């Protein structure tokens, strides 16, 4: 039977082992979602541009990324970056690049759906008002696409937060690694894994609860 002993969990332990990992996990989530959203939007615009090479290129990028397991993508970047640039950049930076590139593919599909969800009349009206195609995209289409997709974007960000734990494959020090390390040092691995599960659950569950509320609020406005 499992005798749980949580007395080793002190403020000092949290500060020493967990906080650093937590900050990295959050930073990775924020950078990957913002960077992924930016590049993903560009990919989506390329995909919908009607220019043959752009359509093919962005489709190829998105489909390739989406057919490879994230762990393999993490390993690929960790292998290729030093090979191509000539010097190692460390596991943390490697993780930033990987997640931005990987999430861009998923955000691109979300933004593609978002842009398609804006009725073509909006674009026609913008053009009829004398806006250039770029202006109509920037000021009319994208804001609405972004707004329509906001709940999906946040849901993807929650998935992304959970996926950051996979940096385990290259040994980056994230929230999970913080718990694993603390568990090893204090000889309490089972408690550490359970605590990690509880923390991830609480954060993800609270975040998805907030997304559900946001979804209802947006639905009422419309």
């Amino acid at each position, binding site marked *: 039977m499992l005798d749980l002993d949580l007395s080793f969990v002190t403020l000092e332990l949290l500060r020493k082992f967990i906080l650093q990992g937590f900050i990295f996990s959050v930073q990775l989530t924020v950078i990957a979602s913002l960077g992924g959203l930016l590049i993903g939007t560009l990919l989506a615009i390329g995909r919908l541009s009607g220019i043959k090479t752009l359509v093919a290129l962005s489709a190829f990028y998105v489909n390739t990324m989406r*057919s*490879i*397991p994230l762990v393999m993508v993490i*390993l690929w970047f960790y292998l290729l970056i030093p090979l191509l640039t000539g010097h190692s950049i460390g596991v943390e930076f490697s993780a930033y690049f990987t997640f931005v590139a990987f999430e861009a593919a998923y955000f691109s599909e979300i933004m593609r759906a978002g842009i398609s969800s804006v009725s073509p009349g909006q674009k026609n009206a913008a053009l009829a008002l004398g806006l250039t195609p770029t202006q109509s995209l920037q000021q009319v289409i994208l804001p609405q696409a972004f707004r329509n997709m906001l709940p999906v974007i946040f849901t993807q960000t929650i998935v992304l937060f*959970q*996926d950051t734990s996979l940096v385990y494959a290259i040994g980056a020090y994230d929230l*999970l690694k913080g718990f694993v390390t603390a568990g090893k040092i204090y000889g309490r691995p089972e408690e550490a*894994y359970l605590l990690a599960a509880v923390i*991830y659950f609480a954060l993800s569950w609270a975040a998805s609860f907030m997304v559900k509320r946001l979804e209802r609020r947006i639905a009422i406005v419309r």
Partner: protein
Amino acid sequence: MHWDWQIFLSDDGGGRTYLEWMLQAWGWTLGVALAAWCVAVSVGALVGVMRTLRASPWINRLALAWVELFRNIPLLVQVFLWYFVLPKLWPAMQQFPSFWLVALALGLFTSARIAEQFRAGIESIKTGQTQAALALGMTRTQMYRYVLMPVALRVILPPLTSESMNLLKNSSIAFAVSVPELTMFAMQAQEETSRGVEIYLAVTLLYAVSAFAVNRAFAFVERRLRLPSSGTDAGVSAAKVAPLGLGH
């Protein structure tokens, strides 16, 4: 840089070539994925049905708790719980090979997602179908067995296809508990041979081929299961049949 594909024909030090090792690893990947898929679909269907039982709030809440629990903990943490924590809780589990622990972890993780697909599929069926089934004197079990599930299964085939492909990709998580599958092979062979690019390319290709095969298999099933009456999908036929059935 230059290629060195010969690496796959060289000995790994254990009497087999890297190619043989990789193919064995592929077998492990497919095995984990298949076992997990069976768990995911059977548990997912059950929990999904429980989510639609509006008359039994406690069953419904239990199913919702199941979905929230397995959806909000990262897969890697769940694998660690199955591998390190549960065997301490229940010593008989220490005999379980890690293959089955990973298959269970991955299967139950995915079951939460598939349950939501089944729930949405069942709820997409017009209430007229339910009422017609009950009016014909069917029991609730018969209604699910003969009316709701056959339609719901057809409705959810497209999302079930992509979730099954996700499951296959997620099986790479098994490296964390040393199941000798493709990702584990990639990491070890890369370290031993320093021919990482060739190794990773081959492994990536095998993942892509497997995912594509899953996709084609589902497309085949979807074609075979298509109802003769329907145009393109079963959801449309459900919507068409319902008003005729009860005339509401």
